[in-house]
């Protein structure tokens, strides 16, 4: 079986020359940007949302969790400002999305998820969200989707220097210093950031008699980090690049109302990746290695550490205009040293992606992946995607898409080995999902309207739930959930005589249906999963001209049930943020911008999670200087 699989996975390797396919022109370097894989190349039929540096910079000093909550249709369970923020995609759990940094999977192997509050937006230049099950493309965890963060280096830009500063309400400040140098062969970028927030916002303490107005007094967060990117062209066909990101996060844990906890948590995350890309005719070889170290210390006592070492090799090959292939293998050596156990694990993944374009209008992607962990076979995960241009007339283009995929999640180290309760016999969680989409694109000179609607259905089973046992809790593969939903994306650029208007709208409808859960009575069957809003909407209008920019952003999060019985819920809320930004220059060398933002201008009192208050109206002033 295994031999057959290897044969199938790597069957594309030699065929190009054997079949006499004429190689395309040799790929040569000399381009401005450092090479990076195209994320969507083998993801036909699914949608990838991209957020560039310009968008991310508006959230300087904040986390990717804050950014996605405010600027996308995704919902994050935020335990307070600066506190743990967990992403849910398409109505799945917080561990059902994979997160990558420069191609390395960075979800915690012990927790099986990512805390988006400790991913400051300074740590990367591009964030991409891949919607939908994509286990065949990315491996474990990508059941609801995946998030990809990457650093972008450029050549031939000379020396530059940039500082960014932000001051705001509730003791918030952020400083970032960045220096970069590049010529035609070498590129380097270094940045250091530091930010902190007292989070001493006022809130109504409903847990106390008289519901007094109080100031939050145990929610301070401080964070600093360093990011170093390097790239060098070794020859016309070979490029090496490396990135390092060290982030240190120190926070008081905001207590849930009614509790007097004074917990503190320190997180340190070190991530390093190195790539060699070799370009040969119509092939791109990639050798990647990396190291991810996560340390979390809770109350200065419970010390949980994991280290992951990665080595992967990949060949991306354009066999012809019709046929493209990517084959690869990834090894991961995972070492967990948790507060109650130590455990190591070796994972091997083989994968094959193939694109087939029989006509210009029709494209198909087929992806296959097999992961082996600790000698166990994870579910074999195939996926199939299709895109078809239904109509292309003038500036109008209508396209349809569909995708079908299997995905899985390897049980976390904690699920299997935590003492007490860990269950080494757990099976991987698995899913089957399908989606259809319709896209419309209108382009004319500077006009652009890009709209897409996707409908999906998904079934997840063997979902792991921790349940009480006589003396402790233990996980079981017990839950089954069916999801369906609709995603709407709209982006528009409208030129005006004095500038341009940009409009972005996102809406997500996620209906989850519990089929089976840990409560054997079945009384929760058919209910919506807790803290999974059926609806989330987001919209931004941006008005820009040469020197000024204005924006208004709003997002609305619908009803969230607080438990599976759907008896108690949190009310929907709507937040509105506004901002103004002015670019300036001083002489020929110095440019910058100064801006002002008012967030939650309606002063909405809200909680993302019950009894965990969030800040009311607040203000920020930004200043950037570039040399």
């Amino acid at each position, binding site marked *: 079986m295994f031999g057959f699989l290897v044969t199938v996975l790597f069957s594309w390797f030699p065929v190009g020359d054997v079949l006499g396919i004429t190689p395309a022109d040799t790929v040569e370097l000399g381009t401005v940007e450092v090479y990076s894989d195209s994320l969507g190349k083998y993801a036909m039929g699914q949608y990838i949302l991209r957020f560039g540096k310009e968008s991310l910079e508006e959230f300087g000093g904040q986390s990717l969790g804050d950014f996605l909550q405010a600027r996308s249709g995704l919902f994050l369970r935020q335990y307070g400002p600066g506190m743990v923020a967990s992403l849910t995609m398409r109505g799945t759990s917080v561990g059902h999305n994979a997160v990558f940094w420069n191609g390395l999977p960075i979800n915690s192997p012990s927790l099986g998820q990512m805390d988006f509050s400790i991913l400051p937006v300074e740590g990367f230049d591009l964030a991409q969200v891949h919607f939908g099950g994509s286990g065949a493309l990315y491996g474990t965890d990508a059941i609801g989707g995946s998030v990809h963060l990457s650093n972008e280096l450029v050549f031939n830009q000379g020396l530059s220097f940039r500082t960014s500063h932000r001051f705001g309400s509730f003791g918030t400040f952020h400083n970032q210093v960045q220096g970069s140098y590049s010529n035609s062969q070498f590129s380097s970028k270094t940045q250091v950031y530091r930010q902190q927030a007292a989070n001493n916002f006022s809130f109504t303490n*409903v*847990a*106390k*008699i008289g*519901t007094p107005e109080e100031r939050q007094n145990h929610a301070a967060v401080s964070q600093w980090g360093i990011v170093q990117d390097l790239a060098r062209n070794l020859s016309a066909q070979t490029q090496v690049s490396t990135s390092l990101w060290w982030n240190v996060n120190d926070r008081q844990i905001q207590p*849930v*109302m*009614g*509790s*007097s*906890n004074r917990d503190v948590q320190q997180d340190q995350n070190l991530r390093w990746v190195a790539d060699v890309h070799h370009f040969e005719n119509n092939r791109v070889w990639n050798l990647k290695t990396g190291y991810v170290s996560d340390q979390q210390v809770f109350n200065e*006592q*419970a010390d949980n550490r994991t280290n992951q070492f990665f080595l992967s090799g990949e060949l991306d090959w354009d066999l012809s205009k019709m046929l493209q292939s990517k084959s690869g293998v990834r090894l991961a050596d995972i070492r967990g040293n948790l507060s109650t156990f130590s455990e190591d694990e070796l994972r091997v993944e083989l994968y094959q992606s193939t694109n087939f374009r029989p006509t210009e209008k029709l494209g198909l992607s087929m992806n296959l992946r097999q992961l082996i962990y600790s000698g166990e076979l994870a579910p074999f995960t195939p996926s199939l995607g299709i895109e078809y241009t239904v109509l292309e007339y003038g500036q109008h283009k209508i396209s349809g898409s569909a995708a079908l995929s299997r995905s899985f999640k390897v049980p976390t180290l904690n699920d299997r080995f935590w003492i007490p309760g860990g269950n080494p016999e757990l099976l991987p969680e698995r899913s089957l999902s399908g989606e259809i989409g319709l896209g419309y694109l209108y382009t004319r000179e500077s006009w652009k309207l890009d709209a897409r609607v996707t409908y999906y259905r998904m079934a997840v089973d063997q979902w792991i*739930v921790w*349940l*009480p*046992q*006589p*003396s402790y809790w233990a996980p079981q593969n017990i839950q089954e959930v069916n999801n369906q939903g609709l995603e709407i994306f709209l982006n528009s650029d409208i030129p005006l005589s004095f500038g341009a208007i940009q409009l972005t709208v996102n809406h997500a409808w996620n209906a989850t249906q519990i089929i089976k*859960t*840990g*409560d*054997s*009575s079945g*009384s*929760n069957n058919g209910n919506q999963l807790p803290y999974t809003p059926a609806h989330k909407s987001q919209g931004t209008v941006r008005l820009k001209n040469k020197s000024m920019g204005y924006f208004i952003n709003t997002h609305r999060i619908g009803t969230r049930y*607080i*438990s*599976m*019985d759907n*008896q*108690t819920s949190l009310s929907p809320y709507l937040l509105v943020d506004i901002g103004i930004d002015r670019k300036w220059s001083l002489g020929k060398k110095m440019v910058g911008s100064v801006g002002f933002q008012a967030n939650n201008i309606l002063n909405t009192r809200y909680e993302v999670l*019950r*009894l965990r208050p969030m800040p009311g109206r607040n203000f920020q002033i930004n200043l950037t200087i570039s040399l």
Partner: protein
Amino acid sequence: MKSFKFYQYLFVGLFLVAVLSCTPDPVETPLGAYERGVLIINEGAFGTNDGEVYHYDREADAVTSNIFERVNARPFAGLVQQLAHYDPYFYLVANTGKVEVVNATDFVSVGAVNSDALVIPRALAVAGQKLFISDYGPYDDQWNNPNSFVAVVARREGGEVYKTIPVPSQPEGLIVVESRLLVACASGGELVVIDTQKEEVVSSIPVNQGSPYSFFNFDGQIYLYARNASHVYFHLLNPANFSITDTKEIPLANSIYNGNFALGENGTIYIIQTGGTTDRIVAVSLLTGQILNENLFQGPNFYGVGYDSAQKNLYIGDNAGWQSNGKVLVVNDSGILQHTLEVGKGPSGFLFR
């Protein structure tokens, strides 16, 4: 003479009419909404502070949810460890660090102990005007509680903690006997006696069999309930010095860790025996120390148990695996299910009125 008597009677009669008409009618205060029925303590789930009290009206067969929030227009916002009744108040002890004081008739909030001194409160007892609150104190790096204490509050309506009395680790149940407060220290393995006037420990009695959890009165005597993984123990206390004078040792393994049990008729005690997917209600005799019925009723996720002496029914709390709100199974003393009540998160205890 007859005429005199007539006028005498008339006078007395008029006098009585006049006097009685000037006397206020006997006070006929309507019963408070929660003075009858069953109060169901729903502990709430860790990290969410969604503990609450539900009310069950036996006659109307109706459950009223979230009565604290319903009456006071704010969530309880805590994990309910104990609902202590000392007229005219109920004390809702939250192990998340507070005590709420409500009227026992209508649940209207009248006060609270919102002191930073409280860490993990477990139980409350009233002695005179003072409140005594057992508290685990903070955890150390091994998840032990070496700095446990009993907190003292001056007023029955709550207020600040003005004194803490160090006691052995993990104090649980309390009982006041005249001027003495008895404290069952589960991990410390001791019964501590505190002078409620001087507010100091006056004696400590080692409990060598089982971890002591709580006290109860039966037949005019004070008992201490203790348990370990293999047995449950009922220690009879000497009312003079609170030493252990007799112990009923019952070989009941895996009694529920939270120390819940219910005292029924004629010294019958009902205890939850946990068993993974299937839990059982075991009936034991306090008088003989024998197991009367090793499987009176069984099911999953049993968490609390209470005995309704008015209707001779057992109330069993089912925590639904902490996945959602729980339910209460009402079972007669023959182990036959009578009906099921939909309640809150983690039903852990009952107060029958």
